[in-house]
Structures are given as C-alpha cells and as structure tokens.
C-alpha cells in the first residue's frame, strides 16, 4: 500500500514563498486562490534578541477528513493512497467542506463555483514525481513520500524525530507533519 504524506521542516524554511508561487502557476489557480500560503511568525522577542520562523501551510490530507464526510454529493473524495481531492463534475459548490475544514485549505472558485484544493499534485506523484511545491523548494524544507515505505525519507523523519501535527487534538489525523526547532538545526 501507499500512504502519501508530507513533512514540513520549519527549521529550514526561510519564507521565500517559492512553493506558493510554484503551486499557483503550475496548477493554474485563479489569482485569488492560494493552496499553500507561508505564514511568518516574528521577529519575536526583544530587540536584538529575536527569533523568527515560517510555517508553510497546505491541505493536511487528513485520514479522518471532515471535508469528505460532510460532502453531500461525494465530490470530495479520499483515495486509497490518502490523497483527498474534489471532482469538479460532482461538486455543487455548497461550501460545506470549506466550513468543515479546520485548516482553511479549501477555496470556492468564484468563476466556476466549485471548490478547489491541493491534491498533492496527484497526477504527478502517481507518475513517480514530486508535487510542485516540493520540487521547487531550494531549502528542501518539504519532503514528500510514502509513509508505508519504512525506508522513505518521510517515514524516517516522522518516526525518528519529534514531528508534530497541527491541531492534532481535533483527531483528524493530518498527514502533513511538522518539524520545529531553531533555524540552522535542520
């Protein structure tokens, strides 16, 4: 089996937004839709004793995905490899999934009326390539792979370091894992 996951190494991220733009351009997203914003925290502290981190966000491809459960038409799908995507043919644009998602990862396109979201570049990754946001990252702050392969880099990172999930307490089992720490340790 394949179970796709992503690791965000915030110790390496510098907030350059390359992933944001690569995704927008290559998935040809409407101008106002961003699948993977990068949030900058800081500089925090008292000058000159400061720190600053960046938090890349994306659809978490939750194992217990509320967005899939609430979809009235079955347009929101979760495939066996864990990828969650929207079938635009069946989406009626009711927006239930947009509200259900705790990560603000779903966006209704004003023009077509359907909901759009990150699909981990499923056509690419199933062909053996990496998602655009991973490929483009100079810092290699994003790692993508198969959690069911114990030798994959994502498996090693998720299992060997203290990785965290955002809003883990909601028990949606997000499949995007975060590494935190000070810059320069990555």
């Amino acid at each position, binding site marked *: 089996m394949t179970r796709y996951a992503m690791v965000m190494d915030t110790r390496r991220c510098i907030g350059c937004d390359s992933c944001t733009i690569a995704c*927008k351009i290559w998935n040809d997203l409407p101008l106002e839709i961003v699948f993977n914003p990068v949030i900058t925290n800081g500089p925090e502290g008292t000058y000159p004793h400061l720190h600053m981190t960046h938090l890349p966000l994306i659809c978490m491809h939750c194992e217990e995905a509320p967005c899939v459960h609430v979809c009235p038409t079955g347009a929101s799908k979760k495939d066996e490899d864990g990828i969650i995507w929207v079938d635009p043919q069946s989406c009626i644009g009711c927006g239930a999934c947009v509200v259900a998602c705790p990560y603000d990862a779903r966006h209704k396109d004003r023009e077509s009326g359907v909901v759009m979201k990150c699909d981990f570049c499923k056509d690419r990754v199933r062909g053996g390539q990496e998602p655009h946001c991973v490929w483009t990252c100079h810092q290699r702050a994003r790692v993508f792979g198969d959690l069911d392969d114990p030798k994959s880099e994502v498996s090693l990172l998720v299992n060997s370091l203290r990785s965290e999930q955002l809003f883990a307490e909601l028990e949606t089992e997000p499949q995007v894992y975060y590494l935190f720490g000070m810059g320069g340790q990555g």
Partner: protein
Amino acid sequence: MKRLENLSDPAIEVRKSMCYFCHTNCGVLAYVKDGEVLAIKGDPGHPVNKGGLCCRGNIALKHLDHPDRINKPLKRKGERGANQWQEISWPEALDEIAERLAAIKEKYGAEAVATAGGTLRTDDWARRRFMNLFGSPNGFHNALLCWIPTFMIEAAISGWSPFVSDMANSRIAVIWGANPGASTLPSMRGITDLQKKGLKVIVIDPRFTETAAHADLWLPIRPGADLALALAWINVIITEKLYDKDFVQDWCIGFEQLAEHVREYTPEWAGPLTWLEPGLIRESARLYATNTPGNIQWGTALDQQGRPSGAGIQARAILRAICGNIDCPGGDLMPGPSYEYVVDEELEANDWLSEEQKAKQIGSDSFRLCAWPGYQLISDIAKERWGKAPTAEWMCEANAPAVFRAILTGEPYPIKALIVSATNPVNSYGNSQEVLAALKKVEFLVTCEYWMTSAALYSDYVLPIAGALERPIIHNSYGCSSSLIASERAIEPLHQRGTDYWFWQGLGLRLGQDEDLWPWDNEEEAYFYIVYPLGFEVEDYDEFVETVGSYFPEPEYYRYKEEGFFTRSGKVELYSSVLEELGYPPLPTYTGPVENEIDHPEIARDYPLVLSAGGGFMPFHHSEEFNIRELRYIRHDPFMEINPKTAAELGIRDGDWCWIETRRGRCRQRANLTNGVHEKVIITQRGWWYPERDASGPDPFGVLESNTNVLTATDADQCDPISGTWANRGLLCRVYKDEEGGKR
C-alpha cells in the same frame, strides 16, 4: 498554462535553459514542442540550483507570453513621453539610430554618446566592443552598487578578488551586508546544509533578515557604519595577537603601518558609531579570527554606502588577509581569470579606444579606481602577472551620477545620446528625480526593453528584447572567474524580439565598424568561440551545453606559494601601493556615514531616523517582475520596516501608508511594524513602480511615488572618492503618516 502531465510526448524536446531573473542563474529545463515552450522546471542536474526554483524562476512562462511585452521595434510619434509609437522593422530602426549616432559623433565627438546598463541580462562585452570601436569611454552600469568597488579594491590589494568562498571546508562564515535567504536561495541552502555539519554563521545587518534568523550571531549594525566595525575588528585581532603570524610575516606587506594605523580604532571607539556593544564587537572579532579557516562573504551593503564604501571594503579585505583566510582550504579563494576559455576582456577590443578618448571618461578624474586610471594600473599588473585582465565593462566605467549631471548641465561636456539596455535607470540609479530629468532632457534616447517603462516612455526608439528562454546564456562572474555555467536557447525569440548582441552588432556594422570585428552571427557562434579552448569534443555551442553545461576547475589552494600574489610586490598589500599611486590613503581611514547624527547634528535635527534604502526582497529582483500579477498578488504594495515603538511615537499603525523623506525627496510605502529593526532605523524596499498605472503625467507608472531611489544620495562629495559609488545606506530620514492614505 500546459500541464506537466502531458510531457511524455516523444516529440517534446528538453532544452537546457537558465533563469535570468537574478545573477544566480539557476538551471531550467524547458519542454519545447513546435517552437513553443510547454513547461519549465528547475533542472535537478544543474550545479547551482539542483532543481529548486524561486518565485521568480517559476513565472518564466508568464514573462514569456505577457501581454505587456514589447514585441516589435517602436519609433516615437509625437512628443517625447506621449506614449505614441509607430511599429517599424529592426533594420529600419538600426539604420535610423546609426544615422543619429553618426551625426552626434560628427558634431560633438564620440564621447557625447553614453550607455546605461543594468544588472546581468546582457552580453556586455559586446556593448563594450561597440563603444570602444565607436570611440566613447562613457558606458556605465549600476556596477558601483554591486560588487565592482569590492572587486577592484580587493584586486588592488591582493591581485584579484578572493570572491569564491570555500565554505564546505570552512568553520565560520561571516555574511556581511547580504541576505542570501531572500536574494540567492541556492547559497542559503548551502549555508543551511553546512550549519548542520557545524559551520558557524555571523550575520552583520541592520535588519533581522531571513538569514540573520538562522545565524549563530547577529550584529545589528547602524546602517552605513560597517567601516567602523571592520576597523575595530582589525584592532581587536591585532591587539589580541589573533592574526596569522606566519602568513602576515611571509605574505603581507605594511603590517606594522597597519597596526599603528588602527591603534585608536578600539571597540570602545566603534561602539557609539556602530550602535554595537564594545563587548559584542570584541567577541565577534574573536569568533572570526579564532575559527580559521573562515569566510567573509561579499554583500552589496559595503558597495552602497557612498563616501565610506571604499575604506570599508579595504578594511574587510585586510581582515581576511591578516587571518590567513585567503586561497587556503576553507578560506576565500581567488579564482583569477580563466586560462582555459576566452574571458570577457579578450572580447572587448579595449585596445581600440585611444588614450585621448580614455582620458575623457566622465568622472574618472575624481573617482579613479573603477575608471580608466585605476583600471589601467590593475589591468597592466594583471596582464603582466596573470597574462589576462579583469573585464573592463563594469570594472572601468564612466561615473553614472556624473553622466546624468552632464546631460543636465553640459559639464564637463555635453552628453547628447544615451542608449539604455537592461535597466530602468529611474528605478535603479540613485537620486531618481535627477535621472528622470536627464532622460527627459537628453537629445537622443534609445531603450532596449521587455516592457514599457518610464525610461522607455521618453525614448526615441524602443527595441524589443528577448528573455531568458529566447537566448543562450553564459555566466562567469562578469568574466572574472575561472568557472562558467552555460545554457542554450529554448526557442528562437518570439515575435520581432531581438537580443542585445544583435543590437550592438547591427549598430556597429551600420556605423562602419569592420565586419571582421563582428565575426559572430549570433550568440551561439560567439559563445562557441568562448568555450572552444576548453577542449571538449563538441561540434557546436548547443552540444557543449547539452554534454558539458558547466565548467568548474578543481580549486587550487596556496597558488601564491609558488607564484606569489599577483600584485606588484607579489604579496598582499595591506598598505596598498595601487591606492597610494592613485592618490588615495593607502590604509583604510575612518570616515562617517554620508549623513550621520555625530558629524551632521543639524541634519539629524530634521531627519532623526537612519535609512537603509532598498535591500533585495522576494519575489522581485530590482525593478523587475512588477508586471507579473501572480507575484503582485502576494506582494501587492511596498512596505518599509519601522520599529513599533518609533511607529507609536509617530502615530503610525501597521499597514499605514507613510512618507519617507530625506533631503533629496520623499516616497511613500506602507508601514511594516517589526522589532527586527532598531528604534532609529528605517528600511525601505527597492524597485517599486506601478506598471498597471497610466503613463501620462509627471510621474509615469508611479515610478517616483514609492521608489526608494528618490531618497538616495549621489552628490560628488557624497560618493566614495575611490570608486565613485553612491549612498543607499546610512542616510538620515524622517517618516510621517500619509494622511490621505490608500492607493493612488
């Protein structure tokens, strides 16, 4: 946009292109079918980026097809600046431009024709070749803001600039006035990887940058005070005997004079000038000096300080030398010119320019190092010792502010024609109001551009220029490195776009320059001539790119042990004979920032804050890509950084539109409240203009409204006497809320 999934079609050819949106020149794979680029992606096999691409790299196809691109040569109709054009052919345009240039040369002399360049987008050996054959010494770039003073001062001291950091073998890297975390991402990745293996990083920057956030030690220096810090580091290293005694004894001259000279430059002296605690200055100097081998990475900040720039660069170069960090494993390596391929200087035809014309180079009497007097000295020494010389283009130019003033005043003599290529001088040169006035006034203006800009607007002719995917590229650090990276044309130029080489060659031939002097019909032929001596078994340039692509010779350490340093003395000249011969202090002597509260209390009363104007920030490069709406969507407005305490005192809230004002003028940017800057420091963004706005009126495309260069200082006495560079950093300013607020 085509989807990458369709790229398995065997009819698709993968071309090895490079990105041209900054100097890093990341490798790009272009998927081409029937003359159309279907997709691009970062080249995983490229030695620079290893597959990564930043925001700018990713928008290559948006740039290629952008509706704002100029696609045919334009000839002005009606008044200058009226934005009314007639489309003509390249041959017609070149015929008419050549005719005008010939007439101006006839009446005023060849020196009345000047050219303004920008950042690397072009084959500037071809520009130089044209100008030398034409007879004018008055080419220039923003070169002085970017590495050229550094290169020339370091060449004066040690025979070449030691600009290649051997960081993989280094214990400490000092990132001085640079922010690779926003400017050169592959370099940031290298630093991050090496930190994991134990590399220590010191960042010297007034701003808590992306790079500073990853450093072991951040020195938040007062903008423009780098010279004081460098002198104090030298003082600590000599006083505490932390220098490399063997290297200093065997390979440096002038150490005793230096030790005497810096005696007064203690950390306690530097504290109030740099706003750094003396203890921190001492500790950081020890960190650098005791963790050998180490690097001091070049950053533009020292090149951009005006008056104290040259001495600061010299002091930084001395630091490397006395710590023995030159040309050793882990140190700063001196590549020298390539002996293995044809370097830019050999393509420039510098011998064709007469001594009489060289002497007319504007500004070269005042600012002598990066102009013919200094270049000639360094080039003669280099040719005698290395057998080759640094590139004259960039290293030996007319002084840009002096040329703009010559247009306006006719002094020292009239400049009647200006050819602008790969720059919008109103955004990128200092004192924008003066530059815009000069562009409006110059009798004949030609611009080679991608877009309609405020400079192109006032032109008599605008030539449409091909972008990165439409041309091959060779990058070899301005012709001053022994390595090179090369790319091929993904597609032929679209529409009627042409290249700068085509422009200069076409113009040269029309002006009667000998065909034998322009023997290459296109870039590929010229580039094959460049790489041919490398000796690879290839039939043409494209085959070189596809099978070789880049050339990095094995680093040579301690070359000086056999041959000496390539200075006149054969040693590193801490006491510089070249600077002394040019009439400059042979040792770095303190001078304050161009405007500062200690020397100029009367200015500080009205302008109490300290400005650093315009470091690089993602996703833009200089004034480029402001037309790309995907990038503007994530960075829609200009932002200046201000400390929250200062902002509160001024009644400024986060996001407010504010005026930033110096004695030269004011521009408006929004407030980004951040404790990443000192309470007295303001950092503005550079490059801003509004291509979506109207071209009419006194401020076409809003080019003055948010442009940080309306604040910068270019008066002759504010420039560095050695190099002539002007001041973007360390100026006095005031900030106040724009009560009208909002978008214009």
